[in-house]
């Protein structure tokens, strides 16, 4: 260890998960004590056990308050470039009934608290993340954004979770390129202040942000956007001329307007589309659509000639007339198709009652991934029809639900392999709540 020069020791210390690890290292030796102060990151989460100890009568008096720990760690550390403080996710599950009235010991977006240390180290800070304790923060409006915009002129990345944020006094932050707001009540109804003060954002993540009325994202440099929104806003608008990747999850917006001409990777989860005004997507290659009514959504979608990779899934099992032929009418140049379990079921049912005509575009399809909920003697005839039409298919993966017994699932794959040996067949297994498993077949 003595052989390691200080910069390399700092590299090791910088990779310790939590700042409490770093704190313990300070007690190892003088060298580690002084080098620990050079580590440019602080990452500290209040764990569930620390929370419980602070409330238990036996341990409460001896514990250091969490806010004090943070202040001590952070003060006078001008070398700090990244600060990440918060409460562990498990604390989000504590119910209101278990919590006493007005305590604010874990109210981290409290301006009074942050003002004790942020002005001191804010100048050099590049990344800041605060994950608040919802029970203590949801009913207190915080002016923390204004404070951050005053102190942190070099900030590139900002993340705030579980808080009620005001935009009063928010000043422009032209250096900020990445903003994440998660489970936030934001007092900026139409996102007017966000657009104005963070004009150079490249990455914007709005996950469960409430308080919006007719939000419009209007950012000229935005490259990647993730937006999950409830049904409260009346309309959703995104004007982003450089946007390349978008994931939008909404319910039934009365109006959805997208002007994103460079979009190439789009994931849209939408229960129902009323007014869907989207201009052409001349660069859209990768598309994922999830809806209750796939038939209606797809028929509203501007020409998908460019789309090469398509993923579809139905949120509810509703027979809407969605079928394989129709897919290729809208997306004639697919090379990859991924069908979620809802979509597969809908398409297969349609096939059994109305058959499959075939489309020229099917000959371009190279790879299919299908999620099956059940497997019976009819399943094979549907797959056979696909093989018959998709004559250039080289890869097919069937991910079968765990409830289907192994011999049945295995039997299906064998039948498929025998019918079409030129295709590379793969079998997988899925069940809600866990990662999919690939099953390797004996040759």
């Amino acid at each position, binding site marked *: 260890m003595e052989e*390691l020069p200080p910069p390399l020791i700092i590299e090791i210390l910088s990779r*310790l998960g939590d700042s409490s690890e770093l704190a313990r290292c300070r007690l*190892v030796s*003088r060298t580690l004590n002084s080098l620990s102060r050079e580590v440019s990151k602080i990452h500290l989460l209040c764990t569930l056990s620390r929370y419980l100890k602070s409330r238990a009568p036996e341990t409460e008096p001896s514990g250091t308050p969490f806010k004090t720990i943070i202040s001590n760690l952070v003060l006078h550390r001008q070398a700090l470039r990244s600060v990440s403080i918060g409460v562990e996710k498990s604390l989000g599950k504590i119910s209101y009934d278990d919590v006493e009235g007005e305590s604010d010991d874990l109210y981290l977006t409290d301006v009074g608290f942050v003002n004790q240390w942020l002005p001191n180290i804010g100048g050099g800070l590049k990344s800041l993340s605060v994950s608040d304790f919802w029970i203590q923060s949801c009913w207190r409006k915080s002016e923390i954004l204004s404070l951050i915009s005053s102190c942190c002129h070099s900030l590139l990345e900002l993340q705030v979770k579980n808080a009620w944020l005001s935009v009063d006094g928010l000043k422009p932050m032209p250096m900020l390129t990445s903003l994440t707001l998660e489970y936030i009540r934001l007092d900026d109804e139409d996102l007017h202040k966000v657009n104005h003060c963070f004009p150079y954002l490249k990455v914007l993540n709005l996950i469960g942000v409430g308080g919006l009325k007719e939000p419009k994202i209007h950012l000229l440099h935005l490259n990647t956007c993730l937006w999950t929104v409830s049904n409260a806003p009346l309309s959703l608008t995104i004007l982003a001329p450089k946007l390349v990747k978008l994931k939008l999850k909404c319910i039934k917006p009365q109006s959805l307007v997208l002007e994103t001409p460079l979009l190439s990777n789009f994931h849209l989860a939408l229960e129902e589309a009323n007014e869907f005004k989207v201009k052409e997507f001349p660069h859209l290659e990768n598309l994922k659509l999830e809806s209750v009514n796939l038939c209606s959504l797809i028929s509203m979608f501007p020409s998908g000639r460019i789309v090469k990779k398509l993923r579809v899934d139905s949120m509810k099992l509703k027979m809407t007339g969605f079928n394989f032929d129709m897919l290729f009418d809208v997306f004639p140049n697919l090379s990859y198709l991924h069908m979620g379990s809802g979509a597969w079921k809908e398409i297969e049912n349609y096939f059994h009652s109305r058959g499959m005509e075939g489309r020229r575009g099917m000959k371009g399809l190279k790879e299919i991934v299908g999620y099956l909920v059940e497997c019976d003697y009819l399943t094979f005839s549907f797959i056979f029809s696909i093989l018959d039409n998709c004559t250039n298919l080289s890869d097919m993966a069937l991910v079968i639900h765990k409830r289907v017994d192994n011999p049945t699932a295995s039997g299906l794959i064998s039948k498929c392999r025998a019918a079409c040996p030129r295709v590379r067949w793969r079998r997988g297994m899925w069940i809600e709540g866990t990662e999919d498993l690939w099953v390797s077949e004996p040759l």
Partner: protein
Amino acid sequence: MKFCTVKQYFDDENNNNVTNGIATTVIPLPNKHLKIKANNKEMEQYEQELLRNVMPQELTKLILAANYLNFKEALDFFCRTVANAIQNKSVDYVRKFFGLESDFEPGEEEKLCKEFAWSFEGVDED
């Protein structure tokens, strides 16, 4: 480009003794990284396997080698490995791991202990 420094390393007399064992571990890493780049899980498994055969003291030498050869990914991996090895362990464990001894003045260590008392919950038994 990475491999120019490798030749220099071999030529450097001081490092001759350390070269063989270290080189066989460090050199294949960039290729393996390229192959498994897309799949994080596979890389984790590969890293775990590598670790099984390496003693903690060797890790220091591996870090120095990776740094000299300017292999950023290898350096990151080895440093993370050391960090993981001392994670959640007592101060004594960390001292033993690195072969260090406490060089504090008598009052100093107590003062630090008090200041950082909050960081001692949840630590593994030695």
